[in-house]
């Protein structure tokens, strides 16, 4: 599931325009995550992506969250409760705080990244280990969650088939170069939104997390909201997909 969420992040991630026009507060997207078992897609978990306005004493921020929860029938065998969160500027989507809380069976891990003036102060806590801290320069790189939302601000209507855009994502205290290739349009069933024309985008990364060429694909609705309607992924341990079940607040 860690790989799945990373791929989800990479899949969404792209350096878009500076002004956020697509992402609104109060959005909620619910996906069914399936994994290929002996040729049959088996539904394992529900992935929920939500946005919410949060106010501090001086600022108004957008809280972005991405949550993966196994269906109750799987909880007895392999329980997953993963939570990825980012607090970003609602206009630029630049992050102030990014958190990752992993609970997968017996594996647990917590990460916290505080962004200030082009640097990141990260804290990582693993099970039965003392927390470690690290400070590193990130330049204009974004965290995994906020870059997910940046993708929706990219104007793919101006892209030509085969056009590639590269960008960097911070994940596991490392910066990873990721490419997004526009592959044209397709009609995809988008849950309660019905069949939608979608931008088809292939994701590649300089990491072993992704496998194959044009095997990691995301379909974004070809409208102003650019809702991720479907994601298919191929990783070293297999293949799977995320299908949009319900989208609200767009």
């Amino acid at each position, binding site marked *: 599931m860690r790989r799945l969420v990373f791929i989800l992040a990479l899949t969404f991630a792209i350096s878009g325009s500076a002004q956020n026009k697509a992402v609104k507060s109060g959005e909620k997207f619910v996906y069914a995550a399936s994994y290929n078992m002996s040729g*049959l897609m088996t539904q394992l978990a529900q992935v929920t992506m939500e946005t919410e306005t949060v106010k501090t004493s001086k600022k108004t921020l957008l809280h972005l969250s991405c949550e993966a*929860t196994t269906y109750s029938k799987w909880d007895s*065998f392999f329980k997953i409760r993963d939570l990825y969160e980012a607090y970003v500027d609602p206009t630029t989507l630049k992050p*102030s705080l990014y958190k990752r809380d992993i609970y997968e069976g017996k594996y647990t891990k917590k990460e916290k990244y505080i962004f200030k003036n082009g640097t990141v102060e990260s804290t990582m806590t693993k099970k039965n280990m003392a927390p470690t801290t690290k400070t590193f320069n990130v330049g204009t790189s974004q965290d995994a969650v906020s870059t997910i939302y940046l993708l929706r601000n990219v104007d793919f209507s101006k892209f030509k088939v085969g056009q590639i855009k590269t960008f960097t994502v911070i994940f596991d205290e490392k910066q990873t170069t990721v490419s997004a290739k526009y592959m044209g349009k397709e009609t995809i069933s988008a849950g309660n939104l019905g069949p939608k024309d979608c931008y088809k985008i292939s994701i590649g990364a300089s990491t072993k997390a992704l496998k194959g060429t044009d095997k990691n694909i995301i379909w974004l609705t070809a409208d102003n909201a650019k809702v991720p309607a479907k994601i298919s992924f191929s990783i070293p341990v297999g293949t799977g997909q995320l299908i949009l079940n319900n989208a609200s607040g767009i």
Partner: protein
Amino acid sequence: MRKVLIVLAFIFAVIGIPFAILPLGTLGVLPAGLSLLFGLLAFFKSPTGHKNVPIWLMVLAGLLLAVIVVKAMIPDEVVKDTEFEQKKIESKQEDLKDLEELENL
């Protein structure tokens, strides 16, 4: 031939058991269905008075199929995890403190 069919029905029934227990959807229909099929063939190949084993194998395969189908019909749901919900609330409170500190730097 009868013995081969009985052995096959038994093997597929055994394979079908973990599929019926694990939440693997309709994947288990294949071994359970094959067990039922071989059990049925063994039943017809068995002489009168020797049909008990195929009957029991068919009953087992039928039960496995019923369990698999009923489980597959139950919709996928996420149960409300109060512990996880509480953790999220606490996490958010902690985040707000961090953000306030960050603004005051």
